[in-house]
């Protein structure tokens, strides 16, 4: 089991191109759909948690899934699997390929990959939206959140913290009333 966790996350780490969000479609495919380790709802919760903790988003996600599967030892294997491909590749570049950046073919390959990766993130966004409990009262929440982050440049961390505080106040208010 620990080896399966490691290999799964090694594969995910190897294809996470262009930052932590690029990991989301890979996790959705490997961990949610294929292996069925967590449900879509749990995946949404985990994204909120991973985003509100400091550190590397992709590593935080793998720590959480590893902990769910096999407690602390599971999170060590998942986190190692996620980071090992990038450590090996970066070390190889630093040691042997000083001018990697100027390689035309590598540059061309990435010109093709980058736009595709954005679409890969869009797909789980739409799939997860159907599990987010959206209705006629809440549909505006993702829209306003997206606009705040994209247009005004508010950090997602603040929005998550504000939402948590709002939810707790609401809960206390309801408890008092009952």
């Amino acid at each position, binding site marked *: 089991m620990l080896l399966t966790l490691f290999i799964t996350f090694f*594969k995910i*780490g*190897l*294809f*996470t*191109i262009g*930052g*932590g*969000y690029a990991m989301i*479609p*890979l996790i959705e495919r490997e961990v949610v759909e294929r292996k069925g380790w967590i449900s879509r709802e749990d995946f*949404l*919760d985990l*994204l*909120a948690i*991973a*985003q509100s*903790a*400091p*550190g*590397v*988003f*992709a*590593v935080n996600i793998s*720590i*959480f899934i590893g902990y*769910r599967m096999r407690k602390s030892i599971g*999170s060590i294997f998942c986190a190692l699997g996620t*980071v090992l491909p*990038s*450590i090996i590749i970066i070390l190889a570049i*630093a040691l042997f390929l000083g001018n*990697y*950046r100027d390689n035309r073919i*590598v540059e*061309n*390959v990435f*010109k*093709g*990959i*980058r*736009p*595709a990766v954005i*679409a*890969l*993130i*869009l*797909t789980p966004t739409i799939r997860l*939206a159907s599990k987010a*409990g*959206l209705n006629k009262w809440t549909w505006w929440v*993702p829209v306003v959140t*997206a606009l*705040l982050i*994209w247009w005004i440049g508010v*950090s997602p961390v603040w929005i*998550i913290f504000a*939402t*948590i505080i709002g939810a707790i106040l609401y*809960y206390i208010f309801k408890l008092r009333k009952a």
Partner: protein
Amino acid sequence: MSAVAIYLKLFWTFFKIGLFGFGGGYGMLSLIQNEVVEKQKWISNSEFTDIVAVSQMTPGPIGINSATYVGFKAIENAGMTPAEAVCGSLLASFSVMLPSFILMLLISAFFMHYKDHKSVQTVLKWLRPVVVGMLAAAVLLLLNEENLGTFSAANLQLYVSIGLFVLAFIATYFWKIGPIKVILMAGLFGGLFYSLI
């Protein structure tokens, strides 16, 4: 500075970056620049730009990629051997993960224990639509000139990028093709198309 002192400093610097690096890789990059280029002067500004470019062109989380690269360069620039530089890069990657590792373990344990409690359920119910918006914002933010090519009507790369974006979406959403296959095909296409024209 002695070797041990440099390693200790490397550990402490990246531990701090891991602890205060909120909001994913790009938020972390500005912290790294501030600590590593401006305060410690381990690497130059142009070396830092190289690191950002290399991080974007290699797989893996950007925070880990840049920690690995900076750890290597900092030790190498201090005039030590490549083997010692490899140790530096491993140390930097480990240190940047350590704070979030500890925090995430605590959060995960807390979450598993209390996730059925009504208050936690309320918080999660409120958070889910926000996370969807957060992901949508990530998509919007990534649709920029760096990823698609300059936004001008005469730029061929822009049209090709839009085509690849739409095709990759159809492939994953409607045809249910896996993301790894899509990445490999888009990379193969880019490598052939842009090299041949």
